[in-house]
């Protein structure tokens, strides 16, 4: 591997390499090896990405007094477990976790299912009005949630659904993004010949969906499910409006309501924030590679 001798990254305005070298570099294209500067920049960026999270844990392990001193703490204190336990009880986090897992799970499963069949229809089936309907789907992605919360709030108030989880679940089932995402995936991942072959074998549309579309769409379904789960887990505006901290909160509502006292306990707030984030961070740590791959796949087709 003599190519490892190629120049360090381009951001340091390289002098044009010699002729023979250049053609090697050209063959490598965007795949030049990164030099030390690239690693330094990336590492700084990684630290910037992680630091607020780590510091959340550091702040949660201290107390109000220590947080009101300079310099700010850089290492863990001894209060972490106490604070976590206290936040857990104070913010009703146990119930909030169950609620959020339920809400996000139901939303993700339903959105994935509905998006896959709708995305299949838009990608592979011919029907009147297909393009117009697809335009509507794309258009709905532009509608700001603020525009919908007022009537939804009225509906919820009328039905007496305040503090009930269905008031959070039902609106979250509409995901134009999901339909779009699955359509883009199925357009290229599902060859028409397979559908035709299934048709010739006498399979109904529904059997085609069950035996051909779902297996082919599985990777995209997993990614979409994860994206919707994260989104629902972190959703703030709407749950904040219809759920109360004492009633039936999701994690975000519970965390936002922490430490609302006269002199809020900052480390307690941080403990709550940490607890609310930790499950997703764990999921990302375990499935990080797949999630990254999924986001990048979706990006190219989008």
């Amino acid at each position, binding site marked *: 591997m003599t190519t490892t001798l190629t120049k360090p990254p381009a951001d340091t305005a390289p002098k044009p390499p010699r002729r023979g070298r250049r053609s090697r570099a050209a063959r490598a294209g965007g795949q030049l090896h990164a030099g030390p500067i690239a690693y330094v920049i990336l590492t700084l960026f990684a630290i910037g990405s992680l630091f607020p999270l780590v510091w959340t844990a550091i702040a949660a392990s201290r107390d109000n007094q220590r947080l009101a001193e300079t310099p700010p703490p850089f290492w863990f204190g001894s209060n972490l477990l106490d604070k976590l336990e206290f936040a857990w009880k104070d913010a009703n986090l146990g119930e909030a976790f169950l609620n959020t897992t339920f809400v996000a799970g139901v939303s993700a499963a339903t959105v994935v299912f509905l998006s896959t069949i709708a995305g299949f229809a838009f990608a592979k089936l011919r029907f009147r009005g297909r393009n117009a309907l697809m335009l509507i789907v794309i258009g709905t992605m532009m509608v700001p949630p603020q525009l919908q919360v007022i009537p939804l709030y009225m*509906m919820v108030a009328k039905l007496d659904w305040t503090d009930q989880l269905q008031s959070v679940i039902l609106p979250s089932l*509409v995901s134009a993004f999901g339909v779009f995402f699955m359509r883009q995936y199925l357009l290229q991942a599902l060859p028409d010949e397979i559908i035709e072959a299934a048709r010739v074998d006498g399979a109904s549309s529904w059997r085609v969906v069950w035996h051909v579309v779902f297996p082919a769409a599985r990777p995209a379904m997993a990614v979409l499910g994860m994206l919707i789960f994260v989104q629902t887990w972190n959703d703030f505006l709407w749950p904040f*409006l219809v759920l109360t901290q004492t009633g039936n909160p999701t994690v975000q509502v519970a965390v936002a309501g922490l430490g609302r006292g006269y002199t809020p306990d900052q480390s307690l707030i941080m403990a709550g924030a940490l607890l609310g984030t930790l499950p997703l961070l764990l999921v990302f740590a375990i499935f990080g590679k797949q999630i990254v791959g999924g986001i990048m796949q979706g990006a190219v087709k989008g």
Partner: protein
Amino acid sequence: MATRHDTAAPPAKEGGAAPARPPSDTVPSQDAKKRARLSRRWQRDVRWSPYAFVSPFFLLFLAFGLFPLLYTAWASLHTVELTAPTDMEWAGLHNYTRIFDDEFYWNAAKNTLTIGIISTVPQLLMALGIAHILNYKLRASTFYRVVMLAPYATSIAAASLVFVLLFGRDYGMINWALHFVGVDSIDWQNEKWPSQIAVSTIVIWRWTGYNALIYLAAMQAIPQDLYESAALDGASRWKQFLHVTLPSLRPTILFTCVVSTIGASQLFGEPLLFDANKGTSGGSEHQFQTLGLYMYEQGWVSQHLGRASAIAWTMFLILIVIGIVNYVISRRLRASS
């Protein structure tokens, strides 16, 4: 892309499950009947199943998307109080006309614009740079990619709460770090530009890594021979970035601009939670109140749902204008290339 699949419709569409045979082929009549019956069922299936597949989405959309949209328009023409949301009194366009004299509305609109710019422009530029670096051959590239997604996994609530502390005036980490370079402690809460920068920082922190991945994906889709021929023409790496990478990324850049703009125009949780006094006015002087936050304040604190609806619709109209501008720009780009 889509149109190509139109022509490749399943053979059933042409009247039968099996591919039509040439007419010279003699077929037993019983078989023909069976085929005809099957074919009728086929046609029904092929004709209606697409609608069955898309209808659940559209039913949900009608109930929880379109109806609220239209009802908000209706409510914006009325005087409605939060305490009695069904008591609507016709107000015509008053909720809209009053906006013209509402200094807080214009303040919020300006803040939304400035915070939008401060948060979107550096975010996308940084994402572009990071993506460029990630596009090199790297050790531990998966590690870097996953780490920069961690902020994306963090909720608005958790992120905003920790940034409130980091941006603290007296004991915050950022002021402490700044004093080493001779900057006096900045009041990130109460001063206008610092507070807007702080709110933007939360947005930038959460979204830069995500956008970098999207750019990276698009960069990896650029055909290698483009770089090859550019290199043969003697273009430096920087020139290659300018003349090959950037033009190829144009659709993706446009896409991220649109998505970020939509997100910026709806900013709500960050400014709400950044306020250390737990207010809804975006700081004591409304210095970082966005339109989303102002709508919330009007509807849920002042309890004027009609006014809030009108504000929401103006936000939507602004987005539509942005959408049209984007459409025009992207058509120009396509025409020019």
